[in-house]
Structure formats: structure tokens, C-alpha cells
């Protein structure tokens, strides 16, 4: 019998060896749906759209509330306008932008592979990274930067870097992008919802963004000189550092203007915000009263600027009629009755495509007007040559023209001279004799409107300059002081605890009142 056993064992072992036990496993465990390798052009379009959306989303629910564009009218927990919000407010941008940064990083790195080498995609990937990293650091302060995005290299607990080091490297990246894009290597037009493949415009965007970031940290003594020199160099060398020349150069995704759920370029406000939520917040009197005082073409509903029933910003009159906003920062239970609000797209009689929810123009990354107002500030401070007044007026005109196509971008046109008269009535015209603070107030009130709908830029600029001067209500938290940052997402305390603690030790308490590096004197 023992012999039988041996035989059986032998047969068994032979059989199992012959029949290979892992044959074909390589092919079997290859995902038949998702794709193993790709190229930069496949990644760029969704990366851009998916990176713009978080900024648009938080522009509505966060920036507008802090900056007194709107005042939420909903239940108790949404009191951003009172500077009282929950810590979980922090998670969204951190999670959304860092994940998109991976896509931009790959747009850059895949274009560096020998087989698919493309200098333009390298430059564009870098611009995308600089854009998102700068917003992240301006929002949170010190953040993972040099060792961020290394998950695929087994580093899921990136160390946090100091904001100053981050900024200096962002500048470096933009220099490189400017060089890479100079070659003008063609890219796939459909991969580029920003410029449809016009590489030269990407180069202008790189340098315009450069100006934004230089100005942002130009108040810091340890880098000020370097910033001023660089701004001057950019402005003085337009062929080496081209910047935006008109609204046609501005960085933005033009949405389709429709409401399809399957068009990738349907405004995400349509599919991402419920209509009733979109028209929920009341307009704040600070934002609205200036527009009314200036008879601003962006809000007026009369033709030619408006449709006859509604203006370009889609502001709806108060129910029962009238143009008034509510005051922000009020004590709980003492709020004004809701007046004007941003119309939602479903009210087609007055809203529809005229509603900001459906409007094709809301996918803003950076506008020409912002560049002009940056230059106005630099000129007013004497850092660059040129008339601050011209930059200032061009900023105003372009900012209006962006939203109101019937309003000329040309500052010598009749539209603008009429507008200047309206501004003069509200004492908002340039005066070279004003002290610098006065000029800054002028510039930054207009910049506030120019940055309308531009992610969190109004808030960043307020934190840098304290402008425009916002009225303060009785009900403010945080000592009535504008939050200086968002706290780190709470889950990072568990997901990356060691580096989190080190970052808090270096930067200061993880509170909304802790100033980031460029805010400190």
C-alpha cells in the first residue's frame, strides 16, 4: 500500500508542476479598463477644469462671505461672514488641490520623457503647479512642498516647508516655465481649454502670475528688494517676459454656457451647486452699494449693458423690488431682511445664461485687469516706470469689460469716460496728490471688484493690504480680525502627525489667527 501512496504523491506533484500555478497572472491582473501609461495631453484638460472648480466653489461659500460680497442666510452653522466656521472648512481645498497637483506634476514629468518630450507641456505643468501651490500656501501658510506629491515614491507623510522657501522656489519654477515656453513647441489644442493650444499666451500667463506672487511677498523686508527688481525686470523686458496685453490674454476656461450634464465645460456651478443654494446668500451692502453708487455697468440691468431685466452679474432685485443688500457681521438674530441676491440659472425669465451660475465667464484663473492693478500699485510705489493712473484706469476698464462685452476695454472710449464721471461722483477717481495710502485704497477697491469670482484672491489681498476697508459688524468672532489662514485639515493630525506637529512648532499655533510668513512684518 505504501507503494501506492508514493505513486499517488508522485502523480500529484507531477501534475501540479506541469500545470503551472501562476501562469497568465501578469495578464490577468492587468486592469482592462484603466490605462497603464499616458502622455501629458491626456491629463491637462481635466486637471485644469478640476483645479478651477475648488476655487470657484470656495469663492462662493468662503471668499464672498469673508469679503462681504454675500451674506449667508441659511442655518446656524454657516457663519463664515462672522469669521466663525468649523475646522472642517479646511479639508476641501487641501484635498482637492493637492490631488490635482499630481496631474500637473505628471503633465510636466511625462513631457520630460525622451519619447514624448515637449517643452511646452513641461512649462504648462510647472505653471499649474505654481498656481495651485501658491494658493495652498497663501491659504494655510507652511505646507508640504518640496516633498509633496511623492506618494508614488512611497512617501505619504511629506514634511512641511517654510513659506519663504516655497515662494522662492515658485519664482524659480516660473523662470523655468518662461524659458521652456519661449520655444513655442506645439501642443494639442483640445487638451488646452485655456488657450486652445496658443503656447505664447501660456507664457504671458506665467509672467503675469509671476507678478502676482512677487507683489504678494513684496512687503517682506528680507525679499523686498529682490521682488522689486524682478517686477521691474519683467515690466522693462516685455519680449523676454511677456505679460497679458488685454482681456483676450486672460487665463480662464470659457464654459459652454449650457446646462448639459455631459459636457465637460458646463459651468460647474450648474452641476455642482443647487439652484436654491446659488440664490440663497443675500448680497452684502458693501459689495452692492458701491456698484449702485457708480452705476456700474456690471450690475445695471438696462440695455446696452444689461439685458433689460437683469445685469451682467445676474443680480436679482429684492423680492418685492429694490436694490439693497444686507449688512455683514451682524449679531445672531439681528440680521437684515434679505434683499438682492445672485439669480440662479433656473429662473429663465430673468436669469438663465445671465445668471452667474450658468455664465460662461466664471472659470477665472487670472485676469488682465489684475495685472494692470498690480502695475498700478507698483508704479504708485515708484518701483516701475509708467503712470499709475493709466494702469489704474485700464484695470477698471478691463475688469468691467470682462463681464460686460458692450463696455469697451479702451479707456479713451466714451463708455469709460462716462464711467469716470460716475466714479467721480463717488470720489473714486485717481488723484496724483493723494498719499500712498489713499492711492492704495483707490486701487484696492477696484481690485476687489476685479478679483470678484477669482478663487480666494480678494481675501489674500485683504490680508496683505487690509484693503478695501470693510465695515465690521457687532457679531464678529476672532476678535473682529479677518482670519489670517485656514487651519490645517484636522485629519492631517492623524495622517501625517509628526510633520504636522513640526509645522505647528515652526509656524505657531494652528489657529485661523496665526499670521503666515508674508503677513508678518
Amino acid at each position: 500500500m505504501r507503494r501506492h501512496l508514493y505513486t499517488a504523491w508522485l502523480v500529484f506533484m507531477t501534475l501540479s508542476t506541469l500545470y503551472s500555478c501562476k501562469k497568465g497572472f501578469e495578464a490577468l491582473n492587468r486592469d482592462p479598463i484603466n490605462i497603464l501609461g499616458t502622455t501629458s495631453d491626456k491629463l491637462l484638460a481635466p486637471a485644469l477644469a478640476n483645479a478651477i472648480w475648488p476655487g470657484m466653489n470656495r469663492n462662493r461659500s468662503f471668499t464672498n462671505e469673508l469679503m462681504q460680497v454675500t451674506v449667508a442666510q441659511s442655518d446656524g452653522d454657516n457663519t463664515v461672514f462672522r469669521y466663525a466656521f468649523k475646522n472642517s472648512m479646511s479639508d476641501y481645498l487641501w484635498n482637492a488641490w493637492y490631488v490635482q497637483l499630481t496631474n500637473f506634476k505628471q503633465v510636466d514629468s511625462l513631457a520630460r520623457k525622451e519619447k514624448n518630450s515637449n517643452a511646452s507641456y513641461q512649462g504648462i505643468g510647472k505653471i499649474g503647479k505654481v498656481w495651485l501651490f501658491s494658493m495652498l500656501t497663501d491659504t494655510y501658510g507652511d505646507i508640504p512642498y518640496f516633498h509633496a506629491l511623492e506618494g508614488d515614491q512611497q512617501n505619504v507623510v511629506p514634511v512641511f516647508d517654510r513659506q519663504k522657501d516655497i515662494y522662492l522656489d515658485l519664482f524659480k519654477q516660473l523662470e523655468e516655465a518662461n524659458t521652456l515656453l519661449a520655444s513655442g513647441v506645439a501642443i494639442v489644442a483640445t487638451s488646452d481649454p485655456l488657450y486652445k493650444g496658443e503656447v505664447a499666451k501660456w507664457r504671458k500667463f506665467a509672467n503675469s502670475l509671476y507678478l502676482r506672487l512677487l507683489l504678494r511677498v513684496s512687503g517682506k523686508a528680507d525679499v523686498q528688494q529682490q521682488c522689486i527688481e524682478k517686477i521691474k525686470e519683467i515690466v522693462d523686458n516685455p519680449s523676454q517676459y511677456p505679460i497679458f496685453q488685454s482681456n483676450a490674454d486672460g487665463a480662464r476656461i470659457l464654459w459652454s454656457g449650457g446646462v448639459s450634464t455631459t459636457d465637460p465645460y458646463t459651468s460647474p456651478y450648474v452641476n455642482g451647486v443647487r439652484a436654491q443654494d446659488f440664490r440663497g446668500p443675500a448680497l452684502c451692502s458693501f459689495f452692492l452699494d458701491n456698484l449702485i453708487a457708480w452705476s456700474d455697468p456690471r450690475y445695471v440691468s438696462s440695455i446696452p449693458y444689461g439685458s433689460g431685466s437683469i445685469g451682467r452679474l445676474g443680480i436679482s432685485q429684492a423680492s418685492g423690488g429694490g436694490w439693497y443688500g444686507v449688512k455683514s457681521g451682524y449679531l445672531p438674530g439681528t440680521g437684515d431682511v434679505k434683499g438682492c441676491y445672485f439669480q440662479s440659472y433656473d429662473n429663465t425669465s430673468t436669469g438663465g445664461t445671465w445668471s452667474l451660475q450658468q455664465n460662461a465667464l466664471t472659470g477665472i484663473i487670472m485676469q488682465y485687469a489684475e495685472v494692470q492693478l498690480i502695475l498700478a500699485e507698483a508704479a504708485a510705489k515708484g518701483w516701475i516706470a509708467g503712470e499709475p493712473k493709466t494702469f489704474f484706469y485700464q484695470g477698471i476698464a478691463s475688469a468691467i469689460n470682462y463681464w460686460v462685452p458692450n463696455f469697451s476695454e479702451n479707456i479713451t472710449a466714451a463708455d469709460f469716460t462716462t464711467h469716470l464721471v460716475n466714479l467721480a461722483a463717488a470720489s473714486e477717481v485717481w488723484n496724483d496728490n493723494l498719499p500712498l495710502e489713499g492711492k492704495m485704497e483707490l486701487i484696492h477697491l477696484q481690485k476687489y471688484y476685479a478679483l470678484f469670482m477669482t478663487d480666494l484672491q480678494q481675501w489674500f489681498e485683504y490680508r496683505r493690504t487690509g484693503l478695501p476697508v470693510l465695515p465690521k459688524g457687532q457679531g464678529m468672532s476672532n476678535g473682529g480680525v479677518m482670519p489670517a489662514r485656514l487651519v490645517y485639515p484636522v485629519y492631517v493630525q492623524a495622517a501625517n502627525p509628526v510633520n504636522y506637529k513640526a509645522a505647528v512648532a515652526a509656524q505657531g499655533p494652528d489657529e485661523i489667527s496665526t499670521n503666515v510668513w508674508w503677513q508678518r512684518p
Partner: protein
Amino acid sequence: MRSTMKRRRRCIRCLGLLFLLLFNGATFAQETVVVSGTVLTEKGEVLQAVTVIATRRSDNAHKAVSAITNEKGIFTFSQLKMGEVYDFTFSSVGYETQFHKAFTVKQAGNSNTLLIRLKSQSEDLNEVVVTALGIKKSERSLGYALTKVDSNQLTNATSLNWTDALSGKVAGLNLIRSGSGPAASSKIILRGENNLTGDNEALIVVDGVVINNSSGRRSANRSDQVYATNSDNLPADYGSSLNDINPQDIESVSVLKGPAAAALYGQRAANGAIIITTKSANQKKKGHFNVRYTINGNLEEVNRHPDLQYEYGQGLGGALYYSYGATEDGASTSGTSSAYGPKFDGQSFFQYDPVRQTVGLQRTPWKAYNNINDFWDRGQDLKNNLSIDGKLGSTGIRVNLGTEKDKWIVPNTGFVRQNIGLSTNTDITEKLKLSTKVNYGYRTSDNLPAAGYGNQSLMYWYIFWQPSADVNWLRNYWAGGNGSIYDSLYKNIRFPFSSFPENPYAITNEFLSKTRRNNVTGNVTLNYQATKELSFMLRGSLDWMHDKREQDRPYDAGTRLPTGSLRKQTIYSQEKSYDFMAKYVREIARDVRLGVTLGGSQLKNKYDKTDIRADGLKYPNTPAGDSPYPQIYNLNSSLYGLTYYPDTSRYQINSIYGVINISYKNYLFTEITGRQDWNSVLATPKRTDNVGFFYPSINTSFILSEVTKLPTFINYAKLRASYAQVGSGGTTPYRTAYTYALANGGIYPDSALVSPSLLPNVNLKPLLTSTFELGTELQFFNGRLGVDLAVYFGNTRNQILTRTVDAASGYSAALINAGTVRNNGVEIQLNAKPIVSISGFNWSVYGTFSYNKNKILSMPDSSVLLRAGNIASGQIVASVGGSMGDLYGLGYQRSRDGQVIFDPATGFPKITSNIIYLGNTTPKYKFSLGNNFRYRNFSLNVLFDAQVGAVAYSLTHYKLAEQGKLKTTLPGRYNGIIGNGVVQNPDGSYRKNDVVATDIDQYYQYSMGSYNAEGSTFSTDFLKFREASLIYAFKPTLLKKVGLTSATIGIYGRDLFIWSPWPIFDPEFGTLAGSDIVTGFETGQFPSTRSMGFTLSIGL
């Protein structure tokens, strides 16, 4: 075998002698006669060594005499006194004690004989149990813990999901139910979760077919999440084929708790196995048929409610007036979902008028409508089952037919189910046997409720509804009609208040989730007995499932779907496996038997899903007053074009294994196993070096009572020990290579892509679990008390975890092999029969106790985030020294003596900025106690069970509290509140809180709302009145007259009462998470229910 019998007989004879010595005291010189008799088993076999005790009625029990049956089953009393009345007791190990009462001893020569049949005990010590791969083994030879649950324990008090009946009956079993609708699925965890994010549930095996990963696979639709405040669809629980098993068809369920099962089932049994055996033909006579018909009906109703307040109505900030829309009384206060408004004080306000569909023309009385729970229906369920079994030629056949029709507590939801099962056993030749089992199930539903917390969910509405509003206002949900501001009928859904929730009647009638599902599970087994020693087995198994699902959404279904939506999925899944096994058994020396088994298997699993969506539908031009639904639900009606979301999975596991069994006599058994698996999910597109892994096990059992003489009250003592290892690579493929996914369902030009958010692991290795287990089984007092005790020590290394990572790494989650986790525990299973009598009152008790302690010994980083909650930064974190399931979140700032610190400016509690430990989400202890009372033909069964030591975060509670809907938010309205705690003085010391918080919304927001995870974290300890059933079995003599062999009728109740500090419905909730059901975060759970029903069973 014979020698063991002899040995046993000797033992029992000793016992008998002992009795004789003790009780056979004084005998008087009265006329004595011989009384004798025979003891047989139920099957008619003679039973030797039965102890027979005769007690004379006129004496006390001490004067009893005893005898023992011989090899022919005959006992003899030679000294019983003529004319006296005796009671006889018959007892033997492994059999139920029998009585023969009031026997009068007659004159010598008359029939002083008795014929007694002993019934074998259900806890038969020689019982054969089904272990892995359907191998039957005598229970005494098992070296590991196995709990068997009989069919009647499953059917006495059935519920919608038969697995509910396992609660409280198996020590160490933790059932996690989704509770999401009539088809709600559940998952079974044995011995604690040692792997929180990966595969952690028990293997489910039905007649040798593993169903977990095919028909038993739970699958939610992509993007359907239970927390979805973006207005998108919420998931319905479509159930799995595990629910579809007809409990009437189950013969037995064996629960193998440790990894010991894995030696034969392979890696997927690493977390234990539930082995379900369905009934086979058991009619022995040719041409005769057993027929059994069972009908079971029950009603289901909500068994627990949150404590809602009905003192204040809709409003914010303690408003003193109310106005629906802006009226002459003032601005609108009807937009809010909060109930911090005016007190119900007999006043009148302008309110909603359901007829006008807008504000009323006159002020109406401001009053509470305590009728939110009128929304729930009474569930109804009816099951019919017919089974026929018999023998035709050399083939035994059993056919089982079942139907079920269910209406659930949510209006317009339910399902219909049909099952048919066929099982055959054929003796082709004496040596070659063929058996087959096939079960086909068909389930269809026109609507299953969508679960969770989101604009489309019912529980969202439940939370947002107002105490000052009447639920009946919502019944007519379409806006429009005569004089309406809306453009037409059937386009706009009316909801009077805040725009966040949907009208619940619109949800139940128009937001439909449909399913039509077929599944077939079956196997064919060939057994060939080559020689007496050598046998072969060959088996093919198939588990196949096809499901067509559809979600319909009408116009105005929230902002994401303003023009409605149609989504259709077709799901096809299949698992095929082949098993080969050769077995050689021989007595190699005197009393030593050796068994060698070699086997191999191959399984192939395939899953395909297509998901086609038309998120936007064309509305017909002329509805002509009729609803255009459901004609509109057609892919041709797509307004914007279709999007596709395919999903697929394929994997293969090949295995070979060997088992060596050695037994010595009938009391020492040892089993050694080794298995090698090759799992394709560990392969990368480039290499396969990690795919194979080997794991051994050894287990031994020793029947102490066979060897040594134990005190007489111990009848049986078994000791067992096992050490088992099991490797596992999981069953999720395609996680070993970096891949790009189609962006947004492929809507971008040029098929644009996005990087993955889950970081794959190119070096994925199998995990390794090792468990050492010691156990004992003891029977005392002739089987009146039985205890099964198991102690285990387990270690899992290289767990395969999905870890939530800092997004700064560029990814949201990463798949890792991580750390070492220790899982130790104790399980006790107990049964006792305090009162036993032949025809009178019987009482038996059964109970379970389990304790599990889980400790994380190492992790790749000091803390690993496993799961993040949605609110207040609640999260499940694994850190060294902690245990799996540790819940962290923001909580109250506390002074050194533990008092809550309040803000001196606002009076609100202060919240930490760092996460703090809030408790563990896995219960430490679970126990149950059941009682069975039998009197004549009546049987009453009651079961209680409990768990202790876990906490969970309740989203429903946070939101209800935040909106002022709970009674706990009543204090302080109008006048303010001083929280119980301290405030800090300027010098840093603390004083008792004396600051009045006047902003009551915010006060409760800080205390229990979204700022604070601790404030809505509660203990999930509970005591449940789990089951009660009363069954009457008709007398066989009576039944014979009407031609029946058996008939029982019963009534029962399940989940009758819950006692728990948990504030919202059921503390034993589970939450759907994709294909998983998770604990720890309650997310808009449906109400828990009690069911009460009847059952009638008739046998022909």
C-alpha cells in the same frame, strides 16, 4: 473502535456500580419479582451501558436501585417488590434522559417488561459535523472551535434576512447589518475585526460553493455614497444572494471561527467561515416521498424612535413670531430647517396652506403635529415554502420551492422573491456516487429605498422636518394645476420649507431603484471509493449572478438632476471552481489510524458591470394631463447624451494542499495541514513573484474522559489545541500597478485621463495571520450542563489596508501592507437543562459570551488614518498601542479634573483644536442568554443578547440636535442656559461656569453639532429582546388520522425591545460604504424594526 466501546462500557459500568453502592441500601423481605426491559435507540439499535434507576413511589429517592443494560440492550431488576409503583429513569451519555413513570410491578410471570427508546441528544458527542470542503467529521476529533446552528434555530423566528437569526447563538459572531431597506445585506465578522479596511468578513459557503465574491457580493453603484449632500443619487441596498437563501432549506450552519478552516478553503477563509448545508433527500424508502409545506408571515414596525421635541416650532434664534413667506407679520421665517422658533402657546400665525400650496389667507393656530412617524408603513412579509424529497431508483431527490413577498416600512418599497432548489444523490455503482445541488433564486423589486444622508434620502427629510408641520401636507407632492405658478404638472415637486430635503412621498413614489436579479448556485460532486482505504472526490462549483438595476429620477430631483435621470446597470458575476481531492485512510498500527488527503483547486472569479446614465431627460411636449412617467424612463429620452461607467474585476486562485490525520483509539486526534495558494491579485503586469504563499496548521483534540477517571459529575471532557497560519492576498484585483482612469466618465475630448486617487502598491504581499487556540468541551451531570470554552491568541502581519493619506502626498488613499495586530479573546458557549421531565415541564438554557481584545503592535507610521468621518473630523485611526476601530475627533476642552470648559464670552463649550480619543467602535463583550420552556406540545423560546464596550458617532443625532429637534435641546430657550462645567479665570484658575449662553442654536451647535464629534458620540451598548417564539406541535396520533406526519404552528417576535443609551434607532447599525458595510459612523440610518409573525409547518 471496538476497544473504545469496551472501555466506555467499563467506565459506565463503574458509574452504575457506584449508583448501586450508593442507593441500593436496605431491602425488605417482601415478595420480589424480576422486571426487565430493552433499551433501543430511536432507530431501533440496541443501546448498551444505559443506566436505569428504579425509584419506588413510597420511598424517597435515596432508596433507588439501578441496573445497566448489557450488550443486547437488556436490563434486569431482580428485586422489585410486587404491587409497588416505580418510576424508572434511563440515562446514557449522548442521549436524552427518558422517564417511564408509574409502573406497577405485577406478579411474577406477567409481563414485567419495558421497551424504551432513547432519543439522541442534539449536542451529540459523537455528532458528525460539516467542516471545510463539506468534509464530515466527528465533533470529538476537531481541534478547533466549531459552532453548529440547527435549522429550527434559524426558522423559529425568521426575519427578512435569515442571518439575523445567528445573533446571540454563536459566541464571537458579530453581525453588521446595513439596515437599509427590505433587501438589506449584512456582513458577518468572527472574532473581531483584525483588518478594518480590507477583507475582514467570514467566508460564506453554501453547499461547498463560496458565494462571497460573486452572487454574495454587495455592490453599490459608483458615486452613490451614503453621505451625499450634493443632491446626487443615494445608494439602495440591493442585497446579496446570502439573503436569498431560503432558511427553510437550510439543514445546518457550521461556524468555523478561527483560521483553521483556511487550511482547506484557502486564503479567503482567513477570517473564519460560515458553512451552510442545505437539506438533502433523506427518505430511505423507494417510492415514498416526504412533503413539507411551511408558511410564514410577519408584520414589521419601527421599534425605537429618537426623542423629538414638540414644544417649539420652526424658526431660528428663539424667534417670537412665525411667518410662512413674508407676510404682514414680518419677514419669512419658514426657510430654515431648525426648530428654534416660537413656543406652541395657543397663538396663531400665517402658516402654510396645503390646499393653496402657499401661505394661508388667515392666521392659523400654532400647534405641534406629532405625526412624523405616520410616514412609516407597517411592513408585511409572507413566505411560502414547499419541499418534497424521496428516492427514485438509486437516486435521492429533494426539491424545494419558496416564494416571498415583502412590503417594507417605507411606503412603496419591497420585493418579491422565488427560489427553487434541487438536490440529488445517486449511487451510480457501489463505489461511484454522484451528488448535485442547484439553487436558483430570482428576486425583483420595483423600488428599494435609497439609504443614507443626502438631499434625496428619506432620513434627511426625517431630520429636516418640522414639529410645527403636518406630514399629511406633503402627500400631494406634484406642484402645479389650476392657478399654480408652475408651468405644468409633473415637473415640479412641492416641498413647503427649506429647499434642502425632498418631499418624502415624491421620493417613495417617483425616485425609484429597481432590481431584477437571477442567481444560480450549484455544484456537482463525484465520489469514488477505489478501495476501502482510498477514495477520490472531484467537484465543480458555480456561482452565477445577473442583476439588472435601474434608478429613475423625475424632473426636479434636486439640482444635480433638474430634468430627471435614468441610470441602468447590468451586473454579471460568476465564480467557477474545481476541486480535486484524494483521500487515503488506513489503520497503520493497532489503534492508530492514519489519513492522508491531497487536494487541489482552481477558482476563477469574474465580475462585470456596465453603468449607463442619462442624467437629463427630454420632457414630452404634451403630457395631456397625464404623467409622462414612466415612459420617459428610456435611454432614448436622454437629453444630453449618455455616460458610461464600466467596472470589472477578474482573479484566479490556484491551490494545492495536503492533510494528515492521525488518531489513536477514540480519544486522541491530530491533524496537520499545509496549503499553497497562488493568487493573481498579487501579480503585477510585469511579475508574479509575490503571488504564491504557503501556510501550515496543526490541531489536536484529546478526549480526557475516555482516558482518566473523572469525578462522576463530569461525563465528557475534551481538550483541544490548534495552531494555524493563513496567508491572504485579498480578492480585489488591479491594485498593483499605477493606472490612469477615464476622466469624469469619459466626457472630455480625446478620452482624457486623470491620475488615480488610490495609490497602488506594486510590492503588495500577502498578509499572514497566525492563531493559537486552546479549548475545552465539558459535559456535566449526564449532559444537563455543557460548556465549550475557547481561548485564542492571534497575530496578523502585513495587513492589506487602504490608508487615508495626507493629500499633500498627491493621493487620497494608499494601499499598504502594514504592521502587526494582535487579536486575543475568549469565547464561551453554554447550555443547561435545569428541569427535565418526561411529559411535564422542561426548561433549558443556552448562552454565549465572547470577549475580544485587539492591540496594534506595530504600524509603518506612528498613526495610520483608516477612515475619515464626514462631520466634526471624526476619524478611525490605527496607532501603535491602540486597537483597530479607535475613534478620534474634536471634543470638549476639559479642565484637569475632567470638567467641560466654557467660553467666558459666549457661554458655549470650548472645542479642542486637536483630535482626541473618543472610544473604540468594536464591542468588547457580547453575550446572550436564551431560555427554552417546553410543556407537553408547547415550546416557548426567548432570547436576549447584549453588547458592551463600543461607541459610535451619530450623524442623525448631530443634525437633529443642531436643528433643535431633540428634547435634549429644550433647556435654555428664550432665557439662555448655563452649561455644566467651568470657565477659566483671567489668572488661569477655573471657577464653576456662570456664563449664560443666550444664542441657543449656537450653544447646541457647539455642544452636539458639527463642531464637536464628542457631543454626538454615544455608547452602543445594548440589551435586546432578540427573539421570542411559542410553538405548538400537534400530536402525531392526532395527525395520523388526517394523514399528516407532522404539523407545528407558532407565533414569534424578533427584536422586540432595545435598551440602549444610543439616541437614534438601532445601536447595532451598519453603514453602506461601496461594497462594504462599516461601523463607527451612523449616517442617516433607517429606523430599526421589530417583526412579529406566525409560522405553520405541515409534513405529509
